[in-house]
């Protein structure tokens, strides 16, 4: 069983909702990201989605675009993100790390090299936004061979036949995109999300987590009530934007950043 499935199973048993923060690796710099990873776990994160910076993040809204630009300006690339995960693993062997990003850096590294280096680093899941299931038949088995889950997105516009193809290829958890749009948008329609999740339940036993547009305790609680958990990205990256670079952020400044995760944890724990 993968680390993601283990953590999900334990959470399900305890009736605990999964809280999955997203942040961009190397934003504002790699040492700060490492500190934030540990702090997020301390503040209640069950897993972490670590964004791999890519020059053309076409599914991301302005907040994450700026985070990606800061990371790239600091020279962060896929190889350095993998080094960061390996460093995180020296102190944390239990929190799943999911790499979230775009296909080109993986293409350029090479699928086999990526699968093996990700496994060596201690990566648990991979979510590639612009890799549709029909184009995943080479990478997914390579990752599976290394016990790494491949996670896919389901959007409100995804048709039933496409959902069937997605759940057949997806492992770990299913990422439900709460709205039509890019990351960080803010138009949650609880009722339509509820109906979509109900339909997905008939197709898969995978844990379903909801992301895009969850920005605070109230939205986390609303979406957590419909699913196994929530992902919070832009609201966190927006706070990271205020941090100083060059690894100079104080413990207090880091705590201010992760406060949004702490309050979301508290809200989810009331469910």
């Amino acid at each position, binding site marked *: 069983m993968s680390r993601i499935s283990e953590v999900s199973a334990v959470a399900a048993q305890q009736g605990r909702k999964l809280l999955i923060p997203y942040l961009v690796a190397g934003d504002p710099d790699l040492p700060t990201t490492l500190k934030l990873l540990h702090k997020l776990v301390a503040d209640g994160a069950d897993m972490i989605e670590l964004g791999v*910076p*890519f*020059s*053309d*993040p*076409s*599914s*991301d*809204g*302005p907040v994450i*675009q700026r985070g990606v*630009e800061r990371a*790239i300006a600091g020279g962060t*690339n*896929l*190889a350095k993100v993998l080094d960061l995960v390996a460093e995180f693993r020296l102190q944390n062997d239990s929190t799943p790390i999911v790499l979230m990003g*775009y*296909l*080109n*850096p*993986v*293409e*350029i*590294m090479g699928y086999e090299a990526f699968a093996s280096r990700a496994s060596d680093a201690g990566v648990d899941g991979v979510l590639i936004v*612009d*890799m549709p299931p029909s184009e995943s038949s080479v990478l997914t088995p390579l990752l599976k061979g290394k016990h790494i889950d491949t996670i896919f997105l389901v959007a409100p*516009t995804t048709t039933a036949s496409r959902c069937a193809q997605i759940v057949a290829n997806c492992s770990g958890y299913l990422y439900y995109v709460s709205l*039509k*749009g*890019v990351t960080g*948008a803010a138009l949650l329609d609880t009722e339509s999300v509820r109906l979509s999740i109900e339909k997905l339940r008939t197709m898969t036993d995978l844990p379903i987590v909801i992301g895009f547009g969850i920005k605070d305790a109230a939205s986390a609680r609303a979406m957590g009530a419909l699913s196994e958990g929530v992902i919070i990205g832009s609201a966190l990256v927006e706070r990271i934007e205020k941090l100083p670079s060059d690894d100079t952020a104080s413990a207090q400044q880091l705590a201010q950043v992760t406060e949004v995760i702490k309050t979301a944890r508290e809200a989810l724990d009331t469910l």
Partner: protein
Amino acid sequence: MGAEDIQRQAPNVYRMKLLGATVVSVDSGSRTLKDAMNEALRDWATNVDSTYYIIGTVAGPHPYPQIVRDFQCIIGRETREQSLAQLGQLPDALVACVGGGSNAIGMFHPFLNDSSVAMYGVEAGGDGVETGRHAAPLSAGVPGVLHGNRTYLMTDSGGQIMETHSVSAGLDYPGVGPEHAWLKDLKRVNYVNATDTEAMKAFHQLTRLEGIIPALESAHAVAYAMRLAATMAPEQSVVINLSGRGDKDIQTVAKLEGLTL
């Protein structure tokens, strides 16, 4: 439209506005075509219920490259018909510029099964492919994935898309339509390039000799065709795709030559 291109293509922007379009400026990334494509995809994902996504080049997710190619094929079909009528035979060579590659694929596609017709896709060599400052992924790129298609791309060793350079806004794109990548691998089409300097020279020559002001994009095709024609016999024929008018570029040309209009 990328903010940089809005500057470079001011007359075209004004024409679009005259026709009633709202032109949205994109300030992210390199502020050119690739960033405008990112922003268009974001807008579409957000407003999918009320928006129809269209694109003017043969790049992007399936089926867009195919849709655009099928429309652009009118160029090649007419070329074929007119060649048979005027030359009594097919041309010996076709030359077209390649940015995303729509005019080129439209010209080439109806001739793909005619093995006697040689085809040349001319990329933007910028300052010269050897300088790294160019927009010639078929000449100097590697296969990768951008905007929902796998094709030749200008990308660094970490997989980031590199900024491109070309005097011509329409060729300033780090990728190329996937069908061109396929035709390159098949060796059916020869992909070559012309530098900014060569394109500028061809721009002037065509204007002076024929009274036709070519777009800077198309001037790349003219530049290569002149090189190619010099190696051919006088009775042989070459068709150059003059894909755009240069009226829109006269300010750019004047500026490069230190003139103010």
